[in-house]
């Protein structure tokens, strides 16, 4: 077991306890004859606590030295991508699909891929147009138009 795995095991024990506590406090457990809404969540919560607890107790002696999950600089791209995806999602309704997607693709190419501006522009415009045609005309999915189209 690595230290990260130990932390994960502790997290799961806490999660399981919280689930059982919440289910017992807010929902009805019922009986074996008539199980209530808390019946299954409690089984799951107890199951998680038991498994993660067993894992923790039996592996504590063999905790390996800290080995980072990410090599140096490895996390930068996934974190940047997450930030960009959240921003893109938040911008889609107010700005509309077209504008938000072009901005998202430009930001991605510049922040993650470090592409040249010409290539960035081509990818952004073509990618947005292809997906627009695919969703609007082939799949019939209504896309947000944004506040500029009223």
């Amino acid at each position, binding site marked *: 077991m690595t230290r990260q795995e130990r932390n994960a095991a502790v997290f799961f024990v806490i999660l399981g306890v919280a*689930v059982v506590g919440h*289910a017992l406090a807010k929902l009805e457990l019922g009986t074996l004859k*008539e199980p209530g809404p808390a019946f299954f969540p409690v089984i799951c919560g107890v199951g998680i606590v038991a498994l993660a607890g067993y894992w923790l107790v039996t592996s504590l002696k063999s905790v390996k030295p800290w080995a980072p999950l990410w090599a140096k600089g490895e996390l930068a*791209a*996934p974190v940047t991508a997450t930030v960009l995806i959240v921003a893109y999602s938040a911008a889609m309704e107010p700005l509309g699909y077209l504008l938000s997607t072009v901005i998202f*693709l430009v930001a991605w190419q510049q922040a993650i891929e470090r592409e040249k501006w010409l290539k960035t522009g081509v990818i952004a415009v073509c990618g947005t147009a292809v997906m627009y045609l695919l969703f609007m005309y082939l*799949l019939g*999915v209504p896309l947000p138009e944004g506040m500029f189209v009223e």
Partner: protein
Amino acid sequence: MDIFQGLLGGFSIALSGTNMLFCFLGALLGTAVGVLPGLGPAATISLLLPVVYSMSSPATSIIFLAGIFYGAMYGGSTTSILLRIPGEAASVVTCIDGFQMAKKGRAGAALAIAAIGSFVAGTVGVIGLTFVAPPLAEFALRFGAPEYFALMLIGLLLAVFLSGDSPLKGLIMLFLGILLSNVGIDPISGKERFTFGIVSLQNGFEFVTLAMGLFGLSEVFLTLESKGAAEFVTATIGRIMPTARDWAESRWAILRGSFIGFFTGVIPGGGAVVASLTSYALEKKFAKHPEEFGQGAIAGVAGPESANNAASSASFIPLLTLGIPANASIAMIFAALLVQGVTPGPFLIQEHPDLFWGVIASMYLGNVILLVLNLPLVGLWVQLLKVPFGILGPLIVMFTVVGCYSLANDMFNVYVFIAFGVIGYILRKLRFDPGPLIMAFVLAPLIENSLRQSLLLSAGSMAIFVTRPISGTLMALFAAIVAAQAYKAVRKRKDVKCADNGE
């Protein structure tokens, strides 16, 4: 309905214009995702679920998704042979001898034997599916709630024990999946569970957002981490058609692989990965020159590639007859069926014979399409590897974000999808397999219902699970699996202790 009559009807459905088109598109897309390292069949099916949900015919949507699933098994060998990077998990073992063959300038023969083996095995798998599925479905008609509960328990347990490297982690994922499916309004009492006052959570988590996040988005994050482009070992593919010696060395491997794949594919969790590994080990044992394995033995490519294709066809048996998904990809097909108002299980063959036989017939056609796509067009697929992830990655993200939004024209689903993407990424970094989570999430409502119904039937007595003949047998099997795993775990700990003490 007679099997041949049913199959004939199935061909009339599969050969219709739309279904043929989607069978071809599925096979094409499947080969593409198999070729592209990183993007596996589970991730791709999850990404395409919103598209499938908008299709009007359940048969067409399942024909499409099935094509992606078994198509990926064909395509997976390309990168294994040329780059020593498995396109998907079931092609890991092909890297060993396939890459060595490529290094010796025999990439063409390796790719060809993989495609031919895949075709033969895929067809053997579908023939097995044709003849095994109907009687199994008929037998499963005798199942009541307790039998289903026991069966689903075994299915999930086998999926955990056979697929991942740590059963303990798999079991935690399994409980987490059940827990996530509990979010929303309890169907029996009508009370809200774990919604915390959020209206959008009253209907629970959308399967699509969960699957796309855990598989699709997390895959993008993982690929972003390692952007180092792999280099081709050969500039040219070389002669495509295998030599007479290649045929002689491969034919029995293909046949053995087909049967191993079929039998492991039927078992939940067994699947394509276990099938290919078992086949490789067996071929090495059967080989006249086992020392050639690892140096470019063609049987080391033919056997495993055949096995993973037979397994992918066979894994439709528990889905179509018992309503049990054998792996994460099949769990997504299961969810697609549910959304389309079709419940997979023993009644499927009676209630939706068009879908049942149409899908099976499409798999015969799909195998032929895949042989044509993979054998002469292998050079074209190699070109696909040159599309940089810098273009593919953001397009996948855009596609998934819009797909999630389109589920209910609601941004809430998009945020849930992103959250599960991050959770999936962290879980996979910590070597937790999200497969059991997805399978448990899909099966949880059925498990909960069958447990509650069983307890209602027995007035709260757990004895109902052991006193009925079929459920009793299944429970005994369940206990035997648990006991065997516990014994294995104790033995492993003992061995580790002995090794630590230097004994």
